[in-house]
């Protein structure tokens, strides 16, 4: 016979209470299980919270690509493997050194042994190993040697726009140009390109046009060779938006090989250096005098005798020895006339105007290479006189281009930019410096100067070029030298409604046979600009409008070129 279990345990009359307790325990357990089941159902049915774990956000964002205004890739990160060692995990140093040096010829045995003997847990052996080398080393199977993916910044177009792009160091830190801007002052801009949800980066779109950049660098290179100049530089600006379509400074470097950039003379002379721009600055003096109403096109100035101020004598390069009207002063590039106009304006107003157009302050574009202007310590009468024709103070050439653009675009000054921007964005940062009527008068002066002034060789057929030349004597050992010149040309086209501005600079060009011994800007910088403008105008969509004269001349030139090539064949 079976005994009741309760009796066996001796619970007897407390049987009923025990059952209740069991029921209570069961209830509690089922409740707990219910809660767990509910939570599970909740977790699996509800959408997961998309927040990334804390570590993921700290992961370094990659560098954005840099593309030109048409979307062509100018800089990009690609993935490469780098070889590292963990010295304290190495078993046999000798074997490792032997195997590695036998298979990777450019590893130095002594250096490698030193590195592997260090008491460290991590050391780079070779950055950026090629895929075939990577496979080879991987197959050796040395313990404590491994690869880590790294990014390598490549500039597929080589030297093209090198000074705009800048370059990075081996750890992908920007060291110059836009690359430095993206890490430094432009960090906010860089961050705005990132899309955290998809972890992708929009590319940085520059205002540079690869084709125009190439044309500029190419023409400059040819000019430097032809005129045996030391260096050269140039910039092409969109007058309405202040965008830099092309900027070149020669000698340049290949950003894929940053060491080249540290060579002497490879610096960016368009923003990183300051130069006396010479007569190009006369345009500023004219704008000031015309805008303030000090003179008009019919005013005459006595240019018969050199201007004597204190110990200084201001003369003209080609003295006319008579009274000159204002347009004549411009086309003859008369120092005397320009100086007298500035004196009529007065020292204070002259200085204030130069400050208004930004020539007395450091201009800061996106590029970190921004040199401060070199200004005279004291501003006196002689300072105003020399500053009127661009001597005695030095600015970034790009600064000069920006001011010239403002003089011709209707009077609105805007800091040039290397990033693509539209007219609205440009208008938001524009500052009016002269009246639209004054700007119109300056267009006439610029065009007149190409039609019958110092810049006649700039006349690319049909493109209505207008411009001003500048020939500045370089300061050698603290004195102006007659034989060391910095020649420049600033011009715009088409002059009836200027859209693009070109500034060219040649450092110490020499006279060539066809220039009849002259080495002033009109004989080298100007013809170079004409070639450049004729080359880029079709790319920019500027339609040529030939006058009857130009058509005749061009037809004759084409015909003679054709017969020449026929006889050559």
């Amino acid at each position, binding site marked *: 016979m079976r005994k009741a279990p309760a009796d066996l345990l001796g619970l007897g009359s407390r049987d009923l209470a025990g059952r209740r307790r069991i029921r209570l325990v069961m209830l509690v357990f089922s409740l707990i299980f219910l809660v767990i089941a509910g939570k599970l159902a909740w977790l699996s049915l509800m959408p997961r919270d998309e927040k990334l774990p804390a570590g993921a956000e700290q992961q370094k964002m990659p560098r954005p690509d840099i593309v030109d205004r048409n979307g*062509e*890739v*100018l800089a*990009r*990160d*690609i*993935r490469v493997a780098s070889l590292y060692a963990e010295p304290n995990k190495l078993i046999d140093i000798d074997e490792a050194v032997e195997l590695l040096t036998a298979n990777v010829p450019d590893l130095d045995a002594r250096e490698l042994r030193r590195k592997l003997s260090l008491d460290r847990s991590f050391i780079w052996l070779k950055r950026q190993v090629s895929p075939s080398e990577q496979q080879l080393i991987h197959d050796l199977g040395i313990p404590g040697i491994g690869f880590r993916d790294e990014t390598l910044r*490549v500039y*597929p*177009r*080589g030297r*093209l726009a090198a000074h705009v792009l800048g370059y990075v160091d081996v750890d992908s830190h920007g060291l110059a140009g836009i690359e430095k801007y993206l890490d430094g002052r432009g960090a906010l801009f860089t961050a705005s390109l990132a899309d955290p949800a998809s972890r992708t980066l929009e590319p940085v779109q520059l205002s540079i046009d*690869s*084709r125009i*950049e*190439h*044309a500029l660098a*190419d023409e400059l290179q040819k000019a430097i060779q032809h005129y045996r100049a030391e260096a050269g530089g140039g910039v092409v600006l969109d007058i309405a938006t202040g965008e830099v379509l092309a900027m070149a400074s020669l000698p340049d470097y290949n950003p894929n090989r940053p060491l080249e950039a540290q060579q002497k003379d490879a610096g960016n002379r368009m923003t990183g250096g300051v130069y006396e721009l010479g007569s190009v600055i006369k345009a500023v003096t004219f704008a000031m005098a015309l805008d303030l109403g000090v003179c008009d096109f019919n005013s005459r100035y006595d240019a018969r005798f050199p201007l004597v101020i204190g110990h200084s004598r201001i003369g003209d390069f080609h003295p006319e020895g008579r009274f000159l009207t204002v347009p004549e002063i411009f086309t003859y590039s008369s120092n005397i006339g320009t100086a007298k106009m500035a004196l009529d304006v007065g020292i204070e107003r002259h200085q204030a105007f130069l400050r208004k157009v930004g020539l007395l302050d450091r201009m800061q574009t996106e590029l970190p290479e921004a040199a401060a202007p070199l200004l005279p310590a004291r501003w006196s009468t002689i300072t105003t006189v020399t500053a009127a024709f661009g001597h005695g103070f030095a600015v970034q050439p790009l600064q000069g281009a920006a001011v010239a653009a403002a003089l011709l675009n209707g009077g609105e000054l805007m800091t040039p930019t290397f990033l693509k921007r539209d007219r609205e964005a440009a208008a938001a940062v524009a500052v009016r410096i002269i009246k639209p009527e004054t700007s119109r008068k300056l267009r006439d002066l610029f065009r007149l100067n190409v039609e019958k002034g110092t810049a006649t060789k700039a006349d690319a*057929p*049909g*493109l209505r070029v207008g411009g001003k030349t500048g020939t500045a004597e370089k300061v050698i050992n603290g004195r102006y030298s007659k034989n060391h010149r910095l020649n420049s040309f600033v011009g715009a086209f088409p002059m009836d409604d200027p859209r693009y501005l070109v500034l060219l600079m040649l450092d110490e060009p020499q006279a060539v046979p066809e220039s009849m011994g002259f080495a002033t800007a009109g004989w080298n910088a100007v013809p170079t600009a004409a070639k450049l403008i*004729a*080359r880029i105008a*079709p790319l920019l969509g500027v*339609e*040529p409008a*030939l006058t009857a004269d*130009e*058509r005749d001349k*061009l*037809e004759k030139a*084409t015909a003679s070129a054709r017969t020449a090539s026929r006889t050559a064949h």
Partner: protein
Amino acid sequence: MLRVLNIILVLTVLAAAFTIYSLEHETRRGERRIAELKRGISDEQEMIRLLEAEWSNLTRPRRIEQLAHQHLELKPLSPLQLVEAKDVDSKLPLRPVAEAPPDHDPIADMLKVLQ
């Protein structure tokens, strides 16, 4: 009664455990596949980026210009070559066009040669 219930419960537990393990196994396999595909995608993307950079390198203006000089007879556009729409009829060069015989179809001939 209770014993039957227990047996059923034990069997259910076994069945559930089996289902869960096979599900988990399948999930693991799926995850591995996802990781594989993701790696494949990222490799492809990296390759695209590399090839785009290569493309940019090959289409750099200096190289295109050299190639054009070597292989094409194209020259920079001269303003003389532009004709305004209103002058088209008077400026078009008049060149006698060889009239094809009426029973001849030049395009069909070309196609024949190609075939």
